[in-house]
């Protein structure tokens, strides 16, 4: 972003990578996949790089408002300095916080999730699907993340993308408004589970395996981690893949 600003250029959209996309080995692949899609569609985009920091979501939901405010106010300073208007992110938690929580702190942006963004690109004809790829004809299932689905009501955009790819979608028993959490939200990602009978990701993975799908499609880096762990715990990693929607597009277009 700072390079573009120095050259006096304005990106069409700012890609908010998020901590997972930046640092988590698995989520980095999603970040690369999404960047490839934007390049393919010739979208001039920027990232904040070192100037981006955690949105503060995990701190806020754990109860640590101080750390949240520190992150949020710093990010808003940066975003406002670059006069950012439109933000796209591949993380539903970043998406929710940027979209719904930053306005009260003085950060007002048009924020969309990458599944909405990609769906719009396809609809507008800016991204042409070539057909084929590793997921062609596969039986797949789709896991709604809480913060994209139930919290922000985005159920259709990801499903529309999946419908435009050649595959067989089997819905989970609990989907859309009834979707079951992967177990990572509310800062559970960063702590051990409380005592119980079962881990939440195992419950959800079992449900996904019941569909007989070979591919579990997600839209959130934390869901991917949780579902991947679940699949491993069930010793199904040879048969079942956990992927982000963007990775299906990359495979489809062989990017």
């Amino acid at each position, binding site marked *: 972003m700072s390079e573009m600003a120095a050259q006096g250029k304005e990106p069409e959209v700012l890609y908010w*990578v998020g*901590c997972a*996309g*930046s*640092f*988590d080995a698995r989520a*980095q692949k999603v*970040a690369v996949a999404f*960047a490839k899609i934007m390049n393919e569609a010739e979208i001039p985009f920027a*990232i904040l*790089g*070192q100037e*981006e*920091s*955690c949105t503060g979501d*995990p*701190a806020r*939901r*754990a*109860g*640590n*408002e*101080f*750390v949240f*405010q*520190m*992150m949020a*106010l*710093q990010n808003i*300073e940066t975003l406002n300095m670059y006069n950012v208007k439109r933000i796209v992110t591949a993380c539903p938690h970043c998406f929710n*916080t940027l*979209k719904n*929580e930053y306005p*009260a*702190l003085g950060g007002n942006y048009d924020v969309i999730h990458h599944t909405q963004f990609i769906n719009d690109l396809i609809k507008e004809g800016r991204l042409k699907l070539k057909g084929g790829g590793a997921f062609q004809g596969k039986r797949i299932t789709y896991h709604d993340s*809480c*913060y994209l689905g*139930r*919290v*922000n009501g985005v159920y259709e955009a990801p499903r529309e993308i999946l419908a435009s790819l050649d595959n067989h979608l089997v819905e989970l028993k609990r989907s859309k*408004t*009834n979707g*079951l*959490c992967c*177990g*990572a939200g*509310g*800062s*559970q990602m*960063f*702590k*051990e*589970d*409380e*005592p*119980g*009978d079962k*881990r*939440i990701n*195992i419950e959800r993975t079992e449900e996904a395996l019941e569909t007989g799908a070979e591919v579990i499609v997600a839209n959130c880096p934390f869901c991917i981690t949780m579902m991947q762990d679940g699949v491993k715990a069930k010793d199904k990693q040879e048969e079942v893949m956990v992927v982000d929607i963007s990775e299906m597009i990359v495979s489809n277009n062989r990017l």
Partner: protein
Amino acid sequence: MIQQILFAIVAIAVFGFAFDRYNKIYRNIRLGKDYDTSGSEAARMKNMLLVAFGQKKMFKRLIPALLHLCVYIAFVVTQIELIEILIDGFTGNHRYFYPLLSSISIGGFDMYWFIISSIEGLSVLALVATFAFLARRNLLKIPRFRMSEMKGWPKIDGNVILMLEIILVTCIFTMNAADDALYRLGHTHTNGLHHEVGSFGFAVTAPLGDLMYQFFGQFDEMGIWMLEILERAGWWGHILVVFLFLGYLPFSKHLHIMLAFPNTYFAPLNSRGEMENMPDVMNEVKMMMGLTDMDGSMDDPGDELPEFGAKDIFGLSWKNILDSYTCTECGRCTSVCPANVTGKKLSPRKVVMAVRDRAEEVGTKIDSGDYDANNFDDGKSLFDYISREEIHACTTCNACVEACPVMINPLEPILKMRRYEILTESAGPGDWVPMFTSIENGGSPWQVADARDKWATDATKENE
């Protein structure tokens, strides 16, 4: 005349008692903090009409929704008959609306017949639903009615309400049937029908009235006397159960029949993804970061450390407390809670019930006169009702918020208690400490030495 005096005494006593009790609940709700009720009134009205009046969210589960709809519609429509009974009670004017309404004809039937027959038909449906509910609660093994927070009083409470419903319907049917038999014998007290002979022909009670007529008709004066007693017993039974209900409601989960309306009206209009901002913390952080214009407008924080989050009901909003009194303990929230379905201790319903129970405890202590409402301290708090293990288990997935048919938010008290724990007590799960430190120092919940855009530079290199 004696009946009217008796009725007036009972009615005034019941209304007085209920008024006092509802007042206390209102007071308890107001113990909570201010809550922003700005925003479109039309949107609020729409929520109330769709969700409370229209039962929209009930229909996420079809069978209970249909059963509940039967009881609900019967209850609403029965109010017409209740008005008539109240007029009768105070004035001795039996079936006050009969002369007027029976003179209006719709499709060959008189209006009075139509209304009462509709009420009777709906009451039969309500009765069927009530038995189904009793079966669901006591015979069928429906998990959400068998959880630990449903033991004891909540279980009794649910059954008491259903029993009262059965008595209510039985009484009104007895009254209508006996009155019909009296009409057949030329002895009804109905307005304008004295000494007339006929039948009301009401959908459900006319055949019953015929049976009573044939049976009691054999005993001449004695039979008429017994029918009159039966009719009055039905009448008094019905109205006394209504009064009992009115006085019992504010002690019961059944209060939702009233509070569902304000609760949906005042439900937040903003995105459920937005946690309530804490301006105090925001301003302090702004000051730390040198982001405020220092024109001396900052309030002096004083010596006392402010309390953040909620330790007790006083730290919740009044809407959170209204939520708790609106809860009818249906458990839909808990049955969709990912923590609960995987055996964790957290139950959103229990959290809401705990808020109410604590509000009740605080209210009772204030009423005892030994405690000051403005500076309340009895050495207890919400943490005595809700354990830390419970609040730590929440994934903030909003499934409970989505599930509630009357727009209760069980998540908010949990998050406010987390805020208290972290901000005021500096406690909380140990696992979170490194996460906080890492975010604060490195801008990421993980301690990573790499540059934030290393993934991008690596990918670019790979492509070259």
